[in-house]
């Protein structure tokens, strides 16, 4: 019985370990070991892998080498002789009719080779049709001899020309084989213990785990994701912005009113009735309910006056302000409409108390849509009302706010907004884009907005705003807003989303 027949898995592994023990520190190659044990190389590789799984028993370094192998036809030739030799052998002294020869298994290939070797000759004019005769006494089957050399692992001793010829005849192929160089590992032993896959309750109860060996885990594979729900990335960012405002002492405004009157959305903010933003092309107007019905009338009269005639030190816009225009219901174009309501409410207090407000909610614009613009988006807004606030206070507040977002390099550009004066656009330096990009807009609300509300003269109100979508798209590297907001969202992106850590 050959050793290979006796070697199933563990037994083979132990044979390999014994050879390794004998080989000493330098180790051995898997090809040589397979040859020495009379095994297919693949069998030996199986043993190496099972030993690797045990941990530190062996160290196996992968190598690759080229080797010449016999094809199945090549192996047949070693057994039976080359086709041409078989043809030669089958021809008796009196010769053989060509037709008969051609019917032999090696006939066709063997005949042409034997002819070109001049081992046989053809007599076309023989009685009974063409006939083949031996041309020499005996032949030397060099093809078979060369193949035998290859089988003995001595392919290198053949001339390259011969190897190529045999390759051309599809008797030899060159294969790349993955081999291992095997050395003893730190936990080397010549015996293999059976390994447990995992810990069981029984092992814990019996204490048998103490004596058992466990299969090593493959730490390179990924685990199984937990089944869970996920929060939407944009709303994760919203949560962080809320947190920042709360950390800074800002109170959340009730912005749960998407429908707003033009009065609170525009007129209260001293935005003239002919302003382009109040155009059909920019704002969604309502058909039903088309008009708002209820206004604080005293305040409304003061708003009308400041627009049409001026007052409180202002020239006003000097045009015919109409209630009809102010009554028109719209989908609010900014949450500043709510800020106006809040500041009006603040002004109705007996005694003014300072206030800090924020909101993050939806606003609507009837605009042309593209990859970064939708008809609805979220506006983030912060407002501080107190005596004596300065432009420096606005800038300082913005610096603190943006620092919490992880944005430290800021600069400010003069800008125009209809209801803030001074106004400033906020730019931050974007490392990726290598340029200054606008990150928000800000200003001090105009006296024409605040004084008709009834706020005391010395009170200033600073405010700033930005969109929620833009920082989120930048944060998560999203180019098309539709992948983020709305029903066309990519749920895989929602599933895979990281935590929102704005300052990280």
């Amino acid at each position, binding site marked *: 019985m050959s050793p290979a027949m006796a070697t199933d898995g563990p037994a083979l592994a132990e044979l390999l370990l014994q050879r390794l023990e004998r080989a000493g520190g330098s180790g051995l190659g898997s090809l040589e070991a397979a040859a020495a044990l009379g095994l297919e190389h693949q069998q030996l590789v199986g043993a190496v892998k099972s030993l690797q799984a045990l941990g530190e028993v062996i160290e196996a370094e992968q190598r690759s080498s080229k080797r010449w192998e016999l094809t199945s036809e090549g192996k047949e030739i070693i057994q039976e002789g080359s086709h041409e030799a078989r043809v030669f052998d089958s021809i008796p002294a009196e010769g053989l009719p060509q037709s008969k020869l051609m019917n032999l298994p090696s006939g066709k290939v063997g005949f042409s080779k034997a002819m070109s070797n001049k081992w046989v000759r053809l007599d076309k004019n023989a009685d009974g049709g063409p006939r083949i005769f031996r041309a020499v006494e005996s032949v030397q089957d060099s093809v078979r001899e060369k193949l035998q050399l290859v089988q003995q692992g001595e392919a290198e001793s053949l001339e390259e020309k011969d190897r190529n010829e045999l390759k051309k005849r599809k008797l030899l192929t060159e294969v790349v084989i993955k081999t291992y160089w095997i050395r003893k590992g730190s936990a080397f032993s010549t015996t293999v213990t059976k390994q447990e896959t995992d810990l069981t309750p029984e092992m814990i109860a019996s204490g048998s785990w103490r004596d058992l060996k466990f299969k090593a885990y493959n730490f390179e594979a990924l685990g199984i994701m937990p089944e869970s*729900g*996920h*929060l*939407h990335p944009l*709303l994760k960012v919203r949560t962080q912005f*809320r947190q920042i405002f*709360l950390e800074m*002492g*800002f*109170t959340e405004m009730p912005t*749960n*009113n*998407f*429908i707003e009157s033009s009065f609170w959305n525009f007129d209260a903010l001293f935005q003239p009735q002919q*302003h*382009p933003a109040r155009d059909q092309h920019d704002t*969604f*107007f*309502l058909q*039903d*309910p088309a008009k708002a*019905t209820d*206004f604080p009338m005293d305040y409304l009269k003061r708003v009308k006056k400041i627009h049409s005639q001026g007052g409180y*030190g202002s020239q*006003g816009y000097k045009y015919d302000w109409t209630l009809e225009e102010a009554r028109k*219901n719209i*989908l609010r*174009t900014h949450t*500043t409409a709510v800020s106006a309501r809040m500041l009006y409410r603040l002004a109705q207090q007996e005694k003014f108390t300072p206030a800090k407000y924020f909101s993050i909610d*939806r*606003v*609507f614009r009837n605009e042309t849509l593209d990859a970064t613009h939708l*008809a*609805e988006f979220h*506006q983030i807004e912060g407002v501080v009302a107190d005596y004596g*606030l*300065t*432009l*420096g206070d606005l*800038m300082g*507040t913005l610096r603190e706010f943006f620092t919490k977002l992880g944005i430290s390099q800021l*600069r*400010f550009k*003069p800008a*125009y*907004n*209809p209801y803030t*004066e001074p*106004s*400033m656009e906020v730019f931050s330096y974007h490392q990726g884009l290598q340029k200054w990009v606008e990150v*928000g*807009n800000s200003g*001090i609300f105009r006296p024409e907005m605040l004084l008709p509300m009834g706020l005391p003269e010395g009170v200033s109100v*600073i405010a700033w*705003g*930005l969109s929620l979508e833009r920082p989120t798209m930048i944060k998560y590297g999203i180019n098309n807003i539709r992948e983020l907001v*709305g*029903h066309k*969202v990519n*749920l895989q992106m929602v599933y895979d989303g990281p935590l929102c850590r704005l300052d990280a």
Partner: protein
Amino acid sequence: MRSAAVVQVCDMPTVSVKRELLFQALGRRYTDEEFDELCFEFGLELDEITSEKDIISKEQGDGKAEGASDIILYKIDVPANRYDLLCLEGLVRGLQVFKERIKAPRYKRIMPVNVDVQRLIITEETAQVRPHAVAAVLRNITFSKDRYDSFIDLQEKLHQNICRKRALVAIGTHDLDTISGPFTYTARPPSEIRFKPLNQSKEYTASEIMDLYRTDSQLKHYLHIIENKPLYPVIYDSNSVVLSMPPIINGDHTKISLNTRNVFVECTATDITKAKIVLDILVTMFSEYCEKQFTVEAAEVTYLNGKTCIYPELAYRREKVKPDLINKKIGISETPSSLAKLLTRMCLKSHVTGNGNNIEIEIPPTRADIIHACDIIEDAAIAYGYNNIQMTIPKTYTIANQFPLNKLTELLRQDLAAAGFTEALTFALCSQEDIADKLGADISSTKAVHIANPKTAEFQVARTSLLPGLLKTIAANRKMPLPLKLFEISDIVLKDSTKDVGAGNQRNLCAIYYNKNPGFEVIHGLLDRVMQLLAVPPSKESGYLIKAAEDSAFFPGRCAEILAKGQSIGKLGVLHPDVITKFELTMPCSALEINIEPFL
């Protein structure tokens, strides 16, 4: 400007100037970066560096751009209220004064010598269509190709911005030497007006002119302003030559050219304040090229009632602002004289009066945007340099509060995700079909608010349910492995006559389970979990219960109403196969939608 969400988007006008011409006028060269920096500091934005060739090849393809000019153009964004910066002349003047290289010019209205003042008589018919007009004369002006182009371009910029696409004000400029006053601004039936319009080869009646321009890419936008009026505005000279038919087109007869020396400017308007501003801007900008620089010849406008006004007004207004106020509003501490100097650099000539207690500021006719002391303070801050202001943190002490409804929403979101549902974020606006037909309901049975001017069906109504958005989210994600479990907590909008605007939001929670089986028990279990989170027990008296109900969106016999806090708060059930099909879905689906406001 969308990121600038605190502010209603206002189209920032863009002025395009030739770089060489600009540097020549500024008397020095800048690198693009230096000029960008200067713009930033002054409140402008160097939006783009381009050329005519670039623009054409970008818009129409490389082929069309061949032969176009490759002279470098700067496209500069100008604040929407700074009409004095809408042309090269104004930009250069503003920047040169800012950099203290020149003093702001003083604009003067003068009466003509040796000739009668030009008169424009307004008849009462104009009252019905376009009641106001103002006029002025640019005497002995010298045009060049660039100056002429800038003159035309400024009129176009003014038309697009302050003139509100000619609805409020329309400008006409005429070669005065081709006509003779007095001029009459009147209104006539379209059939009675007949003249050769600018750059046309024959005469047309006003009605024909309207037809002629119906397909004109530019002029077609202005036709609606007068189209349905019985009388059209028109200006004649004393020989019945038509100067213009505002706000549509001038006559060809009075067309100005590079050789024109005397320009008659008229502005007709529905808003007299804006007409005066527009006239002031146009004449202050281009009086630079008059023989007597920065002077404008007056014109007299007479109403039929005998009231006479002299234009352009070119009024200088004086304001007094306390230095202390400027310092306090900005957060700086400059001396009064230094503040006066800062303001003077913004074309607001200022000096200290009293014992240094006041700064007197002269507001020139070019700065109609200055309507309050806060505008003056802003200019002082710009001249000081926004980025030189010391940043400070307000001492304002406040205790923060969350809005209770949002606080509850935040808590519920976290726990719904923990319960294995994924959050969706869908649009508040949708089509009528989404909230009615597709749910098997009639639109009149919803309390939906309707939008008057939607550009597409996607924006017809505000949603009255979160369900359609979630179903559409699933339809867009059909490739994802099942089951799909989604939720959303957000606002729907319902008509509500108790609100000042007649409608209000309601915060709803909606969840949906989409799989090969309907999974009613999953959605029912989620309801139980939500109630557990809200500490509402399953009980008839003080808790919640569900009872069989009918709803067109649900499969008959598979729908229940949810009662809690003594009221109906919503429904749950297996969706109707028709609903599933209409939302382009193929699997059974169960859903839950409740109003969470009773749990505050």
